């Protein structure tokens, strides 16, 4: 796009520079003066644009060129006129093509405008970003992404599993084949409540997923292995169930990776350093779109704090570098010790959760409020652990004395580890009870390959656990809001004492809130196979959470003193989400392939495993398809594919390193050119001085 100018004689410009009369009506000339476009720095415009160039870029292309020119409006319009005059004579076909492209582009612009009108919560997010900064806004953007993901998943599940189940429950045939006798005990499953049920029991049932809620479309146990086979239409519900679950996971993975891609591209292009960078802070940290008096003052305070923190980190680094070796040894050993202490705390928390889950299973079946408490005991212990352990780890971090940015990352990693693996401990406990510690030929598990006494329908039980975790998470969030944050604000605002001022208003902690979201989403993924309506419940839960968090943000919180970098942080959130997803995938794979499905309920009774439905259907496929699928799975195909993908990856890695070297070379070249320029300028000054002295001496000689 850079085009060379034929420089007008600069004598004309110099004259007007000397006069510098701003009120002059000869605007063109004055514009040259006042905007001081340095001829060496900006792309210049050539008045002799060749027709082929405009042809290649198309009608809109050349016009986009005008918009990107850093010139005042009148100059741009002059350029545009010249370009329009130079439109070459083209055939009717070409001009029709151009008109079509123009119309299409305009349509696209209009469509984008309409779409942005429909985007969820756009205005709220803008307000949040303007008032509280990019870090808090990234949390709410992440929440919106999860809401949309859950909603689309619900549509998927409803379309392929729920609605066909409802429609075909009266039409299709479900087979109840008993392969061998002696398994009648296994098929006993009666979740419907007997006799009169007290009213409060209904409430308890809603909250814990038992009773009338258990035998409903909410849980796995209600679905049948209905198979509809008409002359031209067939639908296999078990097969649909398995495939929908697998596709749901694949779909979520694709969405997350697509979103990570955009974030990663920005991070890689800009070097992605979290190290303090003064020049960038000074020139790019101010948000020009920030409106309002309070928001501006807050931004200034933020920036001031950020600069101070950066200077402080610099000082600490200098201090750390100046430590003697003896002090270094002491510091590192303290850090290792504290690391072990933190790990010990986390393991203690895991053990408590394990004990609580076992106790809860033993006491399950107790009725009334006490029964409810025993039911919810694992969730209570998990929430308490997730609350206490990070607090203690914060105190540990004070002793460890890492740099401030490292402290944040270490605290986050510990919290992530704690949250997700505590869920894993709960699942492990359940598994050991369902499969009698993995040995399905002992004790209670011998008859049906799973513990049918404790769990006549074990899938529904797991679904219930996940349902309870989700609900309890929402209730905890709302309770903390109502009982901690609002009162804190009221106390701080109306009671002016030193204590109140020291406690201060709430700050919106972005990392911990994001971890809460990731935890909730992982629970939903784990439970989706056993509780198909869980994504729908999660959508509603996240929508309620959005409004609650927004309310608490605007009423109770003051803006964070420490800014949280928004671009690298969205990448980090998605990484953690991916980690949760892989945990849920492990559970999915294990449940699909290893454990015997319940014989008394669900669409997979009398199959040895859930995946065997797919295997059975596979053998019913026509020969050609079967051969093709066999071939894809065989070694003859997969090994060459693997080799090919390795080659492609090597190519891209080589390209990447070459580009990196190019960038370094060009940067060095920039430096050299700058020095050349300086050298030449010095030469010119030197020469002109010499010329002046020569003239002087010549003049003196003449006068003499």
């Amino acid at each position, binding site marked *: 796009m850079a085009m060379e100018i034929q420089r007008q004689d600069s004598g004309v410009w110099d004259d007007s520079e000397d006069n510098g009369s*701003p009120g002059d009506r000869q605007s063109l000339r*004055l*514009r040259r*003066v*006042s*905007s001081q476009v*340095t001829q060496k*720095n*900006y792309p210049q415009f050539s008045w002799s644009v060749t027709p082929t160039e405009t042809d290649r870029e198309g009608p809109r292309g050349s*016009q986009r060129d*005008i*918009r*990107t020119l*850093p010139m*005042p*409006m*009148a100059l*741009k*319009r002059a350029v545009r006129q010249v370009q329009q005059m130079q439109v070459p004579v083209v055939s009717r076909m070409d001009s029709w093509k151009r008109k079509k492209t123009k119309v299409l582009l305009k349509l696209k*612009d209009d469509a984008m405008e309409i779409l942005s009108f429909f985007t969820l919560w756009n205005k709220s997010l*803008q307000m949040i970003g303007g008032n509280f900064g*990019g870090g808090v806004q990234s949390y709410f953007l992440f929440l919106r992404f999860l809401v949309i993901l859950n909603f689309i998943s619900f549509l998927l599940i409803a379309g392929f599993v729920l609605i066909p189940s409802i429609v075909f429950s009266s039409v299709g045939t479900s087979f109840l084949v008993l392969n061998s006798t002696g398994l009648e005990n296994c098929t006993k499953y009666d979740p419907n409540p007997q006799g009169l049920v007290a009213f409060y029991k209904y409430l308890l049932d809603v909250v814990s997923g038992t009773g009338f809620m258990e035998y409903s479309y909410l849980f796995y146990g209600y679905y049948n292995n209905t198979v509809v086979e008409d002359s031209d239409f067939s639908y296999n519900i078990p097969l649909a169930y398995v495939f929908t679950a697998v596709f749901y996971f694949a779909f979520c993975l694709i969405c997350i990776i697509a979103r990570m891609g955009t974030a990663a591209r*920005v*991070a890689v292009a*800009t070097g*992605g350093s979290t190290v303090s*960078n*003064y*020049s*960038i802070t*000074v*020139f*790019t*940290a*101010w*948000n*020009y*779109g*920030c*409106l*309002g*008096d309070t928001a*501006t003052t807050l931004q*200034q*305070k933020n*920036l*001031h704090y950020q*600069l*101070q923190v950066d*200077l402080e980190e610099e000082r600490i680094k200098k201090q750390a570098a100046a430590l003697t070796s003896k002090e270094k040894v002491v510091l590192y050993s303290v850090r290792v010790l504290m690391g072990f202490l933190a790990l010990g705390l986390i393991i203690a928390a895991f053990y408590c959760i394990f004990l609580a889950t076992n106790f809860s299973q033993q006491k399950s079946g107790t009725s009334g409020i006490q029964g409810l408490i025993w039911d919810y005991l694992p969730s209570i212990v998990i929430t308490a652990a997730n609350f206490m352990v990070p607090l203690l780890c914060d105190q540990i971090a004070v002793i460890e004395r890492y740099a401030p940015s490292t402290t944040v990352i270490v605290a986050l990693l510990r919290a992530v580890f704690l949250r997700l693996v505590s869920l894993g401990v709960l699942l492990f406990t359940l598994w050991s009870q369902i499969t009698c510690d993995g040995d399905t030929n002992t004790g209670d598990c011998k008859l049906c390959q799973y513990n049918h006494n404790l769990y006549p329908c074990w899938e529904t039980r797991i679904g219930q656990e996940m349902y309870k975790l989700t609900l309890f998470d929402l209730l905890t969030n709302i309770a903390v809001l109502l009982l901690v944050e609002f009162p804190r604000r009221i106390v701080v605002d109306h009671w002016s004492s030193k204590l109140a001022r020291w406690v201060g208003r709430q700050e919106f902690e972005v990392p911990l809130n994001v971890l809460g979201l990731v935890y909730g989403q992982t629970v939903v993924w784990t439970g989706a196979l056993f509780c198909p309506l869980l994504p729908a419940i999660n959508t509603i839960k996240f929508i309620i959470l959005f409004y609650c968090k927004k309310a608490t943000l605007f009423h109770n919180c003051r803006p964070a003193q420490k800014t949280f970098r*928004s*671009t*690298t942080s969205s990448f980090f959130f998605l990484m953690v989400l991916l980690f949760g997803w892989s945990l849920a995938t492990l559970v999915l794979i294990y449940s699909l392939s290893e454990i015997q499905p319940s014989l008394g309920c669900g669409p997979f009774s009398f199959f040895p495993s859930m995946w065997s439905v797919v295997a059975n259907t596979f053998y019913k496929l026509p020969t050609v398809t079967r051969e093709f699928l066999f071939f894809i799975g065989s070694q003859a195909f997969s090994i060459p594919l693997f080799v090919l993908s390795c080659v492609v990856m090597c190519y891209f890695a080589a390209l990447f390193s070459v580009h990196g070297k190019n960038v370094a070379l060009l940067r060095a070249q*920039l*430096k050299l*050119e*700058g*020095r050349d*320029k*300086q050298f030449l300028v010095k030469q010119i000054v030197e020469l002109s001085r010499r010329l002046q002295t020569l003239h002087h001496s010549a003049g003196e000689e003449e006068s003499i």
Partner: protein
Amino acid sequence: MGNKQTTFTEEQLEAYQDCTYFTRKEILRLHSRYRELAPHLVPLDYTNSPDIRVPLTLIVTMPELKENPFRDRIVETFSEDGLGNLSFNDFVDMFSALCETSPRELKTIYAFKIYDFNRDNFICKEDLKKTLNKLTKGDLTSEEVALVCDKAIEEADLDGDSKLSFADFENMISKAPDFLSNFHIRI
């Protein structure tokens, strides 16, 4: 629909659409915003392109610019006379360069012009000091200001003349992830 409007001729609107990142509707809206700054000065009918300039003191009362510490410099950069009096062309130019769809290169050029207080096409230490003071409203001590300025120049200066040319500035901005989203005024 906008077909009934008499503010601009079709030709003028086409030209504005091609030269800026705004649509027809937005240009008309911009004109009404421009007019409400000085209703007695700005005519409703712009078909014969009158040469009217709204002074700096009125422009910086706009809510989008009122709280910006660089409002004076922004308006001065886009004005023809360099003193901050904007004609409608300059007004549209300003918001087009700062809008969401404006490309990075264009924004970098104008950012450089804005931060170059003494207009010598270099951002020297004095310019940096003024920028920093406007940013933090004098909250930092003078030693801290000097330290930050030194470090900033040290990081960004490639050709070693202890001031930032446009090439240095552009190189530094290309590494800033938040530049595009921050250097953006929504109107």
